[in-house]
């Protein structure tokens, strides 16, 4: 009895303003996040095991429907392919540019210029993108000039390339600034010391720059992935609900499920994706904490 009381009082004593003030600071935001995402997600999980709009439990039937769905498979493959191809391209290109900006004097304006596409609204550019990539568009002209056949870049597999280009166009400034801050955080003295020891530029790159950039790779990847999902905006505004097969992404299929009110598939799909993306995000997060 006495022990219990003492224990409770020690909990009470521990729960003071001094050590729990943070909870009250987080509370307003947490209420919104919990209300819109954490709590309803429980209900999403429930629904994923039930008949759409019913109460009957059907086990993994919805999951089976989603996984066996051909469109879902294609969308998942396309999204995976898109992430695997565009993120290395973006990260390497912007790393190269970040080096370039650092190595040349009076090139800082390039950083600002590179950020401009980020600010340009997607809808404002939709028409221009059509003028550039249509069958009779500017790029078609260039191809014709080189003696190659014109291509319609939206309704053939070239659409995938257009999407990758658009992603890189919009985000290379963003990643360049990220790499720039990473490069800036490397201690200059390391380079000086290596210089005294007779290291050349290549050695400096491989033994100083690269290892020191590694801790940043995880967080830059996370931010690049986050931006990669937004490429749906361009794809949607240019080609609508059902674009060419090569750019039919997970975002499209969710959108179409939503329009057709396919609750069961939507919930099961959301649970699967939350699992996959969440696991990847946590893994990357762990990587960058441990480095």
């Amino acid at each position, binding site marked *: 009895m006495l022990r219990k009381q003492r224990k409770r009082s020690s909990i009470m004593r521990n729960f003071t303003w001094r*050590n729990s*003030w*943070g909870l009250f*600071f*987080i509370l*307003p935001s947490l209420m919104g*996040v919990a*209300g*819109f*995402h*954490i709590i*309803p*997600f429980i*209900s999403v999980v429930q629904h994923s095991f039930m008949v759409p709009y019913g109460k009957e439990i059907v086990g993994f039937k919805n999951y089976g429907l989603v996984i066996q769905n051909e469109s879902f498979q294609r969308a998942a493959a396309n999204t995976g392919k898109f992430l695997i191809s565009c993120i290395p391209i973006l990260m390497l290109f912007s790393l190269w540019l970040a080096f*370039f900006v650092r190595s*040349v004097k009076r090139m800082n304006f*390039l*950083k*600002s*210029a590179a*950020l*401009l596409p980020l*600010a*340009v*609204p997607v*809808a*404002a*550019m*939709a*028409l221009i993108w*059509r*003028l*550039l990539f249509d069958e*009779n*568009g*500017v790029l078609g*002209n260039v191809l*014709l000039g080189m003696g190659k056949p014109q291509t319609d870049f939206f309704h053939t597999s070239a659409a995938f390339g257009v999407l990758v280009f658009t992603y890189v*166009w919009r985000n290379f*400034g963003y990643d360049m*600034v*990220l*790499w720039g*801050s*990473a490069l800036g955080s490397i201690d200059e003295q390391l380079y000086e010391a290596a210089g005294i020891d007779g290291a050349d530029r290549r050695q400096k790159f491989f033994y100083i720059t690269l290892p020191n950039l590694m801790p*940043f790779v995880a967080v*830059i990847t*996370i*931010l690049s992935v986050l931006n990669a*999902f937004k490429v*749906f905006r361009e794809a949607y*505004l240019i080609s609508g609900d059902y674009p060419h097969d090569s750019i039919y992404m997970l*975002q499209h299929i*969710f*959108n179409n499920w*939503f329009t057709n009110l396919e609750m069961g598939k939507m919930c099961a799909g959301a649970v699967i994706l*939350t699992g996959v*993306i969440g696991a990847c*995000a*946590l893994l990357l997060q762990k990587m960058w904490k441990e480095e």
Partner: protein
Amino acid sequence: MRPVAAKNVERRIKMKRIKVIKFLAAAVVIFIVAAPVYMLVCSSVMAEDELALCYGSVIGDKEGLVKVSLLPAYPTIHWFKTLFLDTPEFFVMFWNSCLYTAGILTGQVLAGTPAAWAFAKWKSKKKKVLFGIYIVLMVMPFQVLMVSEYLVLHKLSLLDTPWAVILPGAFATLPIFIMARFFQTIPDSLLEAARIDGASELTIFLKIGIPLGKAGILSIIVIGFIEYWNAIEAPLTFLTNKALWTLSLYIPKINQQQAGNALAASVVMLKPAVLVFLAGRDYLEEGIAQSGLKG
């Protein structure tokens, strides 16, 4: 003596060549960034017949190829006049976009700033789990979060009201992540000193946190403006009433025959984004840079 001089000349030529290459690289980057934007602004002041002549094969049903002209032959503000005087729905959409952006940003600053401060400065083990959840939510694409958001908005019968766009946006977790990075750069010793002087946690937040973390707050406003001015997914999903739509949804729906109107509307939509970008360039850059640095 001679070989040294020759070597020097050779080196100078090499240096010059590197300089030229670097200049060219910079020019290419700027061209790729600026050309589409220039093309948009240029086309928006073209007269109807010039638009048909140049772009007819893409936006009309003409045969042939697109022609690109560096300057419009007879610049006209005709399209802007029609847009401003004869297209009342344009203003509705414009103000909708403004309302949603302003509402979301207000919510993010009010709810997000204290949370970010706690994530940065509160010494507790519990917060790490929570911050992990916030980061996972930050990476999730809209289409995955949409299901949960829809269920809540449906239950609160907020669908098809401005709140359906504003509320989920106001509780996005990316701005909290960015602001927490800024707050982390404030030295703990400063807070300890204030605590010893008897300042409460709230005073510390208001008198030290906010003034020193001002750059972080401004940077999420710039980043957020760019993001939500551009929003497409949430209004498309949660608003079926077209009177509530945003510019992003309105512009692509403009009739092909009225390409001039669409171009003018695009330029008007571009303007606030570019102005905010120019005014907040440094904060934008700092906000991005901070989010990459280690906490």
